[in-house]
């Protein structure tokens, strides 16, 4: 198993007490594509980031098991974590505007990632960077390698980000809302690209999103989170047969182009969803 999470709990201290952000989550991931879906504050990002131990410093984490490829992430020191973060597990965030360095060219950033993880000279790394840009289907990789992030569109920036994450040839890719800042057309292109690269390289993928139907097109399995808990886990193809009222609510409240709804269904939240 690439990722094993058993009974993960993440809580944050508050002025008087503490708040539970993630409660008793268990997930496993092999060489497959897992979607984690939920609304803001459902704990989906925290769950995925806990694998890299990239959590806010005041987070109190406990788990029966939290392992990446057999390595116990809970007990690992910074040295061990550095050999996982970026190198064996890459992270793609929502907005490339904030995750790319504004004063370095796209090529230089990818080359830097290459050299940090794989060594080698500048020229070799730059050649590798251009090759990676071609792999993320950028038509003119030479030209884009010379460009600064502000000269790139959102979709192009996200491709650069993906190229940078692929440089160390990781086994796992965590994509946290990778297309929420992009147009529908570009969104589909980027997700198809991620899906294609992950399948061809035999990687594991965790795709985090709030868009349930969208995720089902690009993942094998979907875990639905609500208030820090996984309330339902099912094969992407079985989504229409979802049983939990929250999952069904997520699907029913969407306006659709194919059939008109006079009024959108509003989710009636049941306090019993908070019970385990």
């Amino acid at each position, binding site marked *: 198993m690439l990722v094993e999470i058993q009974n993960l709990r993440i809580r944050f201290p508050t002025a008087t007490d503490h708040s539970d952000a993630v409660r008793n989550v268990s997930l496993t991931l092999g060489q497959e594509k897992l979607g984690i879906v939920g*609304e*803001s504050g459902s704990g989906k990002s925290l769950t995925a980031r806990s694998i890299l131990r990239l959590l806010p410093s005041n987070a109190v984490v406990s788990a029966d098991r939290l392992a990446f490829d057999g390595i116990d992430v809970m007990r690992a020191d910074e040295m061990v974590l550095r050999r996982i973060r970026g190198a064996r597990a890459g992270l793609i965030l929502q907005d490339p505007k904030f995750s790319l360095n504004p004063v370095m060219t796209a090529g230089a950033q990818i080359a830097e990632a290459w050299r940090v993880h794989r060594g080698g000279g500048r020229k070799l790394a730059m050649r590798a960077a251009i090759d990676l840009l071609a792999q993320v289907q950028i038509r003119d990789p030479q030209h884009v390698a010379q460009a600064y992030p502000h000269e790139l*569109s*959102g979709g192009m920036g996200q491709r650069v980000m993906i190229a940078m994450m692929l440089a160390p040839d990781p086994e796992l890719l965590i994509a946290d809302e990778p297309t929420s800042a*992009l*147009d*529908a*057309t*570009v969104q*589909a292109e980027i997700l198809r690209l991620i899906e294609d690269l992950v399948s061809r390289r035999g990687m594991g993928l965790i795709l985090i999103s*709030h*868009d*349930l*139907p*969208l995720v*089902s*097109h690009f993942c094998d399995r979907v875990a639905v989170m609500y208030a820090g808990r996984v309330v339902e886990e099912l*094969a*992407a*193809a*079985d*989504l*229409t047969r979802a049983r939990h009222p929250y999952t069904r*609510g*997520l*699907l029913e*409240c*969407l*306006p*659709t*182009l*194919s059939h*008109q*709804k006079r*009024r*959108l*269904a*509003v*989710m009636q939240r049941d306090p019993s969803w908070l019970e385990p």
Partner: protein
Amino acid sequence: MIEIDGLSVRFGRTEAVKAISFSVAQGESFGIVGESGSGKSTVLRALSGLNPDWTGRMSVDGQALTRRRSKDFYRRVQMVFQDPYGSLHPRQTVDRLLSEPLLVHRMDNVERRIMRGLNEVALPTSIRFRYPHQLSGGQRQRVAIARALMAEPQVLLLDEPTSALDVSVQAEVLNLLSDLQQAHGLTYILVSHNLAVVAHLCGRIGVMQSGELVELLSADDLRAGRTRHPHTAALRELSIELEEPETA
């Protein structure tokens, strides 16, 4: 209610909006869809008076718009933005945010209007003295809508009003917008890249691509696939493909 004829907007040498024309009747909802950079938000900004560098003719309620607008214009035409976190003053309470338009337009009964405003967008009065950061995303967008309604406008310009919200909250806000339109006979122009959202709220839709209005069609025609321009057809196809959950 709104007539736009040959509107062009330039930023330096680039023409962001190229001589577009459309009209919106009183009480109607008109939608504009297009990708980023197609010029859809620029149309709204020119109409609302946020961008003075436009040419062509625009009129609201029979009055031709000039570069400088009257105070009354800014009362009758209000705008709601995508991200309520960016459009609400972070150091002002909801009470202050809602009373500002009333002070600007010298309206009376401030107390009663604020309570009614909160009630209208289904916000509890307990949030009246909270700051924006103490509210959820959906509550913030409701405050932004309540503020836009304070001055009793005729026209609401909505720029991606639900794109930053969770889908369950989006449904509530879209329902709220339909109810408010019914109750006040408001005229809407809704800009979004989400075809399903636009078709849900609007009867007629304009499709923009690189600054041009390439097609005007009814929501029914869009749903049924009676499109004439290839860009409309492409946007429609993608939207339908991705909105349905995958089935085995």
